[in-house]
């Protein structure tokens, strides 16, 4: 425990919503110049805590005992009016998604100016000058021009810089950061994180950094508090939490964090002919409007993916990484016939000309699992119905009855057989994704395309799902086209990794060789940006 006086301290704080205890006996302290990481999975209470500190709670919240102090003053004793003067000036907050937290109809400069005018009592010209300086400080190259823009005219990174400038504008004593990089792509996130670290060191602000990403937090925070079901279960120096967790929960959490150095797949795929081969595949979006067609001025349609060539051998796990919009999902959709494509696609040596040519054999062999299980399971069908459908299409194995086959499928994905009667909304996110996986495996496919299937899940669930996939592969010899933006995860399991950037496949290499001196500059930047766990 640090001995310096705490800027922010939470002492034995309780909070509940009705009978649900959201926070129990929270104790935290952040001294000046330090960053405390607060890590927890969804529903753990970390965001409730942030708003409790900001004194912005819904009417249904009931506070128990405890105190929340800012430089010794108890914020719980403050009136709403007093709080309005503390927020933004002494206690700032940065949100997850800059696109949502900036008012779309206000110019970017105004977001900083309003803070300075309010809390620093500056005149408009003074505030404008100060803002320009601030924006320059947060690394925006043409601050004056940027000030005149609207949020939609700036990139995500630029917007988050503006948000950070606004947060630091009034020189607060303490900052709360609620997943400030989650909505950004890896490289930008890295830059924002560096900017924050610099500013934090420069201003000596005390910061509470909230995140679900243990690896990331362990790199920027001096101490890490782990919150689980409303309780802080562990509060230790960062390195210690990672390398030597005290609590069982933390241990599990740490174990679940993907570490590229811990390979989960050891075998190499057999040197056989590829099940799936793609040569020069280009996928275009949209269609020509009626007017354009009539006018005969058909402009070429934008391509989501250009000239991509890939091969997948039986049992191979091929990772595909890239930021959003890089074209990874586009390829996935083309492979299952949801998009038309140009170029060649071969399945076990057979040429597939387009979606229309994908016959039952092809579809049986190539299955897909989507990112959001909420959207990919029909809410009006029971799990049993959902699973029966592929069985009806592709046949029920071993002369089992349909019902038994459904039960068997559920068992394969480690769900109880009586789930067949349930509906998707009665299942948790992880369970739903298991159902989606079961649906894909009902066809006994040779290839399953996993399109970001773990990215909406908490890290511990993610680990279980990955485990499941690997077991199934063991059992059925299935190959995966594993699409993700999580480099750490894919490096744990993939044999080879394809890197996509703005529609182009920039690199395809063995996992071990990735990032070597031969690697593409983008690949290296990507790898540099990824926070790997300390320790």
């Amino acid at each position, binding site marked *: 425990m640090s001995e310096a006086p705490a800027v922010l301290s939470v002492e034995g704080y309780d909070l509940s919503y009705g009978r649900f205890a959201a926070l129990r006996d929270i104790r935290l302290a952040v001294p000046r110049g330090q960053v405390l990481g607060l890590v927890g999975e969804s529903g753990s209470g970390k965001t409730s805590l942030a708003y409790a500190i900001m004194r912005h709670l819904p009417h249904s919240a009931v506070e128990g005992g405890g105190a929340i102090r800012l430089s010794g003053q108890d914020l719980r004793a403050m009136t709403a009016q007093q709080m309005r003067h503390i927020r933004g000036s002494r206690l700032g*907050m940065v949100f997850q998604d800059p696109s949502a937290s900036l*008012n*779309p*109809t206000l110019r970017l400069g105004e977001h900083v100016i309003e803070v300075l005018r*309010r809390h620093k009592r500056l005149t408009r010209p003074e505030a404008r000058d100060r803002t320009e300086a601030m924006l320059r400080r947060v690394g925006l190259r043409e601050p004056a021009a940027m000030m005149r823009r609207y949020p939609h005219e700036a990139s995500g990174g630029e917007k988050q810089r503006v948000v950070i400038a606004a947060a630091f504008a009034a020189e607060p004593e303490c900052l709360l950061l609620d997943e400030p990089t989650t909505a950004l792509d890896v490289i930008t996130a890295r830059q924002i994180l560096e900017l924050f670290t610099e500013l934090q060191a420069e201003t000596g602000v005390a910061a509470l950094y909230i995140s679900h990403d243990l690896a990331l937090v362990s790199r920027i925070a001096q101490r890490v508090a782990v919150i689980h079901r409303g309780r802080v279960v562990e509060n230790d120096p960062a390195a210690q939490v990672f390398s030597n967790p005290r609590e069982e929960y933390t241990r599990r959490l740490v174990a679940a964090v993907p570490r590229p150095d811990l390979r989960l797949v050891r075998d190499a795929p057999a040197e056989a002919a590829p099940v799936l081969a793609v040569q020069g595949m280009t996928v275009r979006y949209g269609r020509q409007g009626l007017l354009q067609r009539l006018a005969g001025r058909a402009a070429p349609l934008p391509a989501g993916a250009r000239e991509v060539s890939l091969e997948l051998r039986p049992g191979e796990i091929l990772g595909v990484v890239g930021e959003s919009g890089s074209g990874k999902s586009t390829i996935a959709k083309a492979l299952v016939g949801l998009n038309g494509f140009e170029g060649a696609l071969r399945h076990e040596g057979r040429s597939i000309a387009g979606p229309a040519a994908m016959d039952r054999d092809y579809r049986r062999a190539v299955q897909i699992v989507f990112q959001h299980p909420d959207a990919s399971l029909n809410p009006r069908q029971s799990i049993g119905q959902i699973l029966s459908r592929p069985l009806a299409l592709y046949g029920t194995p071993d002369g089992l009855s349909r019902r038994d086959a459904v039960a068997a499928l559920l068992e394969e994905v480690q769900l109880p057989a009586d789930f067949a009667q349930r509906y998707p909304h009665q299942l948790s996110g992880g369970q739903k994704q298991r159902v989606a996986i079961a649906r894909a495996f009902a066809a006994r496919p040779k290839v399953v395309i996993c399109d970001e299937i773990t990215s909406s899940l908490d890290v511990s669930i993610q680990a279980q799902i990955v485990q499941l996939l690997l077991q199934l592969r063991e059992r059925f010899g299935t190959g995966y086209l594993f699409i993700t933006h999580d480099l750490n995860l894919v490096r744990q399991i993939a044999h080879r990794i394809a890197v996509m950037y703005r529609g182009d496949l920039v690199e395809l290499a063995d996992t071990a060789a990735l990032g070597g001196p031969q690697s593409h500059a983008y690949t290296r930047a990507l790898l540099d940006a990824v926070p790997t766990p300390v320790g």
Partner: protein
Amino acid sequence: MSASYLLRRLLTILLTVLIVSMLVFGITQVLPADAAVMLLGENATPEQLVAVRARLGLDLPVWQQYLGWIGHVLRGDFGTSLETGLPVGEVMFTALGRSLLLALLSLLLMLVVAIPLGVVAALRRGRASDLGIGLASYVGVSMPEFVTATLVLITLGNPAFGLLPSTGYVPLTEDFRGGLARLVLPVLTVSVILVAHVVRMVRSEMVDVLGTDYVRAARMKGLSRPRILFRHALRNALLPTITVVALDIGYLLGGIIVVEEIFAFPGIGRALIVAIQQRDLPSIQAGALIMAATYALANLLADLAYAALDKRIRYA
């Protein structure tokens, strides 16, 4: 927004109006009425009818008649009324002018009343004032204009009380005060449903906006309440309302038909009702077409207003 966008929108409107013209023309073709008989009365001899049909082009195939008609319309000639023999376009556009006056005043009143009410309801969500406004707006949305109009007539317009003149129309240029006084009751009636509708819209938009991250962010920045309300919340809440108002113009033009009939207001709605009752085909065609075109233009204006206010929209 670019000139080519504007051009494209105008072309779309033209296409829409063209389709409407076909529909309207088609409808008037199947109406149980014969223009030649209408013109001559039933004392006409068969030879006369044949002659008149030839003169009017009624003996031509329907599509030729349509082309002839639309050709004239494009040159600004809507034909002459079978009833009065007056040029229909002139009559309808004069009437349209009055209806637009009525419509614009109703919109104005609606905005002045509905926005503050909607905001109050949103801010006081779940409290008595919100429920009261909500209930009133439910009732307002559910009252047909003729019921509202009659209620207005026996209360505010009741000659026994002598509050307001209830009927008729005097051009504002002739008698400004008298003309305005005569507009009060119709405007009031038309506004009721609009207000009720828009209040609900403003309220729900406002509730949504108050729950957004950027309003929460503004709160967390410790900004003053007026600044959060006006600069951050209201502005964004009103944007979608504009679209609703544009849609309401369609209702407005329809509702005006009944209101004009009841208050003896000589607008395009009443002109149309009269035309329909008299089976005056050129008047029906012109009136319906002009109304549809007005509606389409109003929608374009709303789009442009939206674009001017919402910086996110870029019309390429």
